[in-house]
């Protein structure tokens, strides 16, 4: 049994230690907000937070994630909506949307590390791939989420 702390809840899971975290989340916990895109850490669609750091969950094993705090898009701001998600909606960032949860997780981490990122910081940190071409809006939304007038605490969800 592997014990995983996902979005603040402990799960005892009978999975192979080498099973990538992505598949534990998706197929064993039904947390499908984290996406499969490449399986080899190239696209970033599977980005989640491990002890507040962004990781590509397709290459992190369940064993390596044990004992760490795992946060997925579903647990990013519970209750409420994260200011990055809010900026994403205001700037109409997604198109198809498939890569966007990974983008958002990467953006949240960037803003945690650098509250006022430059364009160069964004280029360096946001290595997620988007086939639809939402990049301009990703950049705008990150800058918007970084600006002081948007730094309000998350509201309560019903």
């Amino acid at each position, binding site marked *: 049994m592997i014990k995983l702390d996902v979005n603040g809840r402990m799960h005892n899971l009978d999975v192979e230690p080498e099973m990538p975290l992505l598949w534990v989340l998706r*197929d064993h916990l039904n947390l499908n907000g984290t996406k499969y*895109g*490449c399986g080899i850490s190239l696209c970033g669609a599977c980005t989640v937070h491990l002890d507040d750091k962004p990781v590509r969950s397709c290459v992190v094993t369940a064993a390596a994630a044990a004992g760490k705090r795992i946060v997925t898009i579903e647990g990013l701001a519970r209750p409420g909506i994260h200011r990055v998600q*809010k900026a994403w*909606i205001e700037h109409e960032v997604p198109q198809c949307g498939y890569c966007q949860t990974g983008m958002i997780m990467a953006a949240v981490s960037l803003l945690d590390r650098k509250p006022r990122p430059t364009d160069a910081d964004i280029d360096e940190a946001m290595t997620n791939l*988007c086939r*639809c071409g939402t990049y301009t809006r990703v950049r705008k939304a990150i800058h918007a989420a970084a600006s002081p007038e948007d730094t309000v605490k998350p509201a309560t969800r019903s």
Partner: protein
Amino acid sequence: MTTPARQPKSPQRRDFLKASAAVGGGLVLEFSFPLLAHAATGASPTEVNAWIVIHPDDRVVIRIARSEMGQGTYTALAQLVAEELDCDWMKVSAQFASPNANVRRNRIWGSMSTGGSQGVRSSQDYVRKAGAAAREMLIAAAAAQWKVSASECSADKGVITHGPTKRKLRYGQVAAQAAKLQPPNDVALRDSKDWKIAGKRLHRLDIPDKVLGRPVFGTDVVLPGMLHASIAQSPVFGGKVKSVDSAEAEAMRGVKKVVRAEDFVAVVADSWWRANRALGKVKIEWDVGANAEASDATIMAMLREGLADPEIAEARKVGDAPAALSSAAKVVEAEYSSPYLNHATMEPQVCTAWIKPDGFVEVWTSTQDGEASLSHAAKTAGVPLEKVEVHKTMLGGGFGRRGGPQDFVRQGVTIAMAMPGTPVKMMWSREEDMRHGFYRPASLVKMRAGLDAQGKIVAFEAKIACPSILSVLVPGTMRDRILSVLKPGAARNRIDFTAVRTLSDMPYEIPNQRIDYAMRNGHVPVGFWRAPGQQNGVYRECFLDEAAQAAGKDPLEFRLAMLKAGDKNRLVLEAAAKAAGWGTVLPAGVGRGLAVVEGFGSYAAGVAEVSVSADGGLKVLRYVVAIDSGYVVNPDTCAAQAESNAVYGLGGLYASCTVKNGRVQESNFHDFPLPMIGDMPKVELVLVPTGGFWGGHGEPGILPFQAAVLNAVFALTGKRIRTLPLRNRDLQKG
């Protein structure tokens, strides 16, 4: 009959809206959110007509027949219906119309096909009429209740008012009565200048769910007792399974079954990872046949042979091009080529299928055509169309991959048939997706232009060798009707318009033209990539710059001189040139190029600015694109599509799918690279809608992109790029 899956479900915005309202003040001006209360009211909704369902509490559900793959059709169509319905946009939600019900109700929703930038333009007329008809029926129902003439009543934001007495009734109060009325025979549609919901920059209906990570995609489907499958197809296209040794795989943890089909092997397990891992342990022998000999070199030889075919088919003939070329003052000649390209949707191909105990087949899939999915599922399962339901999910990218082929539905249903009673979600690995696409055709085009003494083009000749998408995707009898035989006796050289467009229908006034097409299909499956035939626009517009240079003329002036006054190509070209500052001085190290190409109902012209880094890499700095689509339903989604087309075009300049031993060699994003955030140019969309026709936005933006960029590269470096991809090419060296 049908099963409500736990997921995906129609957009739920209540949670977000509450949160957003509490945060407050953040919503961008001009945007407004439909407010959707999901609380069960107990009272049942009314279908006023097939497109419109109204709840007693005035919520309006608009049914959408086309698919949503990011292009915004889901919202744009809802805007058009709501515009004519005169309902409250804040109470609107959308849901996909059921393909099964479409079969049973005599195709009441029309086509569900979503491609060719058709979503809005080919259904705008009947969806707007549905909205207007429902409005008239709601007004008539209120008038009947008041016992007054309908002509004394008006509707606005879902409220009907009797003018003389100021009495009011809400849509929700009269919907049930309205639905019983005879629909009006004919309805007048609103002039676009009076639009209040259509034409506005409204928030897209599908975005909050996507941002919150709610399950909306085909890959997100979860059903009770569902299993997972991963598949392997013949590495050589067209190969068949010869033998399978699955003993080791079957003993692995979680594996339920190894399914052997004619042309694929699948492992079914209790998680996708376990299925895919076990698949790697299945020993499969393939019968690959002669296709295993094919390579880039044999494909290029095939295309080159096509150019020399004496029976090459005539796609267009105006005047006498060969004669005019032989008497021209100057002849410019060039050969251009492009490789195969994969769609590389971020969501791999996916299909969940469930063969129910009563024989009913349920399918959940990311499809660009719910009806095609339904018919492929029915044929595969051997059941009538009525015995299948296809639940359309949001698509994690489409770009043409998920429309015609429907290979994933056939596979998903085949696998489910081996597991009767159990839902199975089949998803391809990225490697499978990269190597089993329906690729943008590779092509080779040779062009000649004859200039007179004044530098004007008097003759244009093009020979096109290219696989035919329609030959691959359209079944036999229909294919014979679509591919017109223009040259008797040359049956194999029939015309596929997707292979000749943009060269066979040039807007330029050139008195002598000869465009020939050699259909050379090869064994690599081809399909509708974003803007099928777009490579011809690259060739044409780059070659015109070569001709302009030979004539010593400015590329803009050269083109304008060949475009009639009033031609919309001229209008967008002038609009793009003006917005981009054509002719103004650029900073050192920056080059500028332009192109104009019409297609998919619209006219598009682009101006690109580029620089080249010290190590020879291309950077596209800016892309100004002017589009005349007749009308504009949502300017913001149009802007998003312009950005999207720029990135797709940029990716297409760099990537390629190469063939060796009959198989595509690229396997993932390391060898099929996509642009990243730092590669994104500044995209500026100039909308110049002139009205009177409906054009698309999903594809037109890509049409001038690559040519504008390559023309800018030439302007900067003097290097003329005629062969793609650019990957690993040093533009400093050429």
